[in-house]
């Protein structure tokens, strides 16, 4: 029996549930010679802002146990240059391009959303809210439920295409920001962005990356991400796209069984640009072996009752 691999994230139909994560595949073009973009369900483009950014000074990355920290500083060419130079080259693909974007004020977010909404190559928008709100003393939008609501609602008003909100894990209770985004009109939630971390080069007595803190990604993050996807999927009605440390099929399946409708692969692309193909093959094989006719049926299929939660938990 053939497994139906396509899934729907709200109004967007994806040919399969495995996408490339934002910031880990450029604008798609640097990926082309390493992976057939049509083979994946979607490609989340590097985060764009209206005016672009030259990014942070190096060193921008360092390794941590089973993970890495990055502080790229959202280097990007800006929406206008993206539309002029890059978007035309993406038209030949059938895959869904998801335009990741950000700003430092609600107005900047809205401007980017509006401009990207007009770009034909874009199938949906993904809003990165893990950015400091410079009007609110630099507190990240994504950690304040009211800011999440405000910026989501504002962007929702100006764009006709589906709007995904990418949640920050750097919160006490992610269901609160998840619901804020849902209530403000988000069509889907991407869960999760990187978690702030720090590493020190003790011999040189300096921070390993220039900005001191950077975002933790990779397998180390996975248990936190799976937990959050599970929590969010229970808390909202809109689809959840799971991400965080996925490098093989069983990792992706953890997210799907926990409640995600699709997954994104980020850091794993660095060591193996074709990791998504192995993951897809593994998901299809799993569906066959476990009697799932469609990849979409995996979502939330963990058996909740097998291991009953008994009383209050504190580890």
């Amino acid at each position: 029996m053939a497994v139906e691999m396509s899934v729907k994230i709200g109004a967007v139909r994806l040919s399969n549930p495995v996408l490339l994560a934002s910031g880990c595949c450029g604008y798609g073009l640097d990926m082309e010679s390493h992976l057939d973009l049509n083979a994946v369900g979607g490609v989340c483009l590097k985060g764009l802002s209206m005016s672009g950014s030259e990014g942070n000074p190096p060193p921008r990355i360092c390794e941590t146990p089973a993970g890495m920290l990055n502080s790229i500083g959202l280097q990007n060419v800006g929406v206008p240059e993206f539309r002029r130079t890059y978007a035309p080259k993406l038209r030949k693909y059938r895959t869904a391009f998801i335009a990741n974007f950000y700003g430092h004020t609600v107005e900047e977010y809205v401007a980017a959303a509006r401009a990207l909404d007009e770009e034909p190559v874009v199938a949906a928008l993904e809003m990165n809210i893990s950015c400091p709100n410079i009007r609110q003393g630099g507190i990240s939008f994504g950690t304040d439920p009211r800011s999440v609501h405000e910026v989501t609602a504002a962007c929702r008003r100006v764009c006709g295409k589906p709007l995904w909100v990418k949640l920050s894990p750097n919160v006490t209770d992610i269901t609160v920001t998840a619901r804020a985004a849902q209530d403000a009109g988000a069509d889907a939630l991407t869960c999760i962005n990187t978690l702030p971390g720090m590493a020190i080069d003790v011999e040189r007595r300096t921070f390993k990356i220039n900005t001191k803190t950077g975002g933790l990604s990779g397998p180390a993050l996975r248990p936190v991400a799976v937990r959050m996807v599970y929590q969010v999927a229970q808390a909202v009605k809109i689809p959840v796209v799971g991400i965080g440390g996925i490098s093989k099929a069983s990792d992706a399946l953890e997210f799907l069984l926990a409640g995600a409708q699709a997954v994104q692969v980020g850091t794993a692309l660095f060591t193996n640009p074709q990791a998504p193909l192995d993951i897809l093959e593994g998901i299809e094989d799993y569906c066959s072996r476990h009697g799932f006719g469609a990849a979409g049926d995996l979502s939330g299929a963990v058996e909740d009752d097998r291991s009953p939660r008994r009383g209050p938990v504190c580890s």
Partner: protein
Amino acid sequence: MALKTFQVTENRVQGSYAAITAEGPVSPALPGQFYMLRGDWGADPLLSRPVSILAQDVSSRQIRFLIKVFGEGSRRLASLKPGELLYGTGPFGNTFPVDFLSPEDRVLLVGGGVGMPPIVYLAESTKAMGVSPVVLQGGRTEKDLVLLEELAGLKIDPVLATEDGSRGRKGRVTVLLEEALKDAPRVVYACGPEGMLQAVADVCRGRVACYLSLEAYMACGYGVCLGCVVSVRQEEGGRYRRVCKEGPVFSAEDLTWR
């Protein structure tokens, strides 16, 4: 490009260096290009490590690397045994610009430490073009001078310098460079530790064209993470260039050294 699987056929360890020969799907490549390599280990260390091609032969599917032990990643790579597997993506990066060279040109190649593999590969390649390069190699002590056999195999007699005078001229490689510049070379190509490259750039500035192959901490090696950037002089296109994609070879004039 899928993850390539190579099988180690030889590993000659000498001090903190390991000269590894492996067999597998070798693609055509150019001097300065590199692979991102890892072994059959778990998620720690997570990232592959950039390693330059020392030599390769597409038809016999052989490729050679020289690896120096710095930290955990290079330690593991350097301790791979014959029969073990080496996983890699690549070849990545640009190459040393050589298209303007003609046979009568004098060409200087300057290297040290893990900067030597691309220098040796470049020497092999310019010789094949009919250009015989002069190779200058520097190191702290005799033990830091590497790939002398390989250079001999190319019939190149490198000019050597060690800081402690244990072999060749006593002093840094820039002492050799200063002298060699008297013979009016057409171009200088260099690869080695950052300090050496800065010194080479200083010596060459305003006197001779100079191309440097840089190192940077890398996550992907193929341009998508933007983690490996170096700051450049020209304004167009932003301040930063990716060492893995626009590099690792840059014109010395373009670099601001941060």
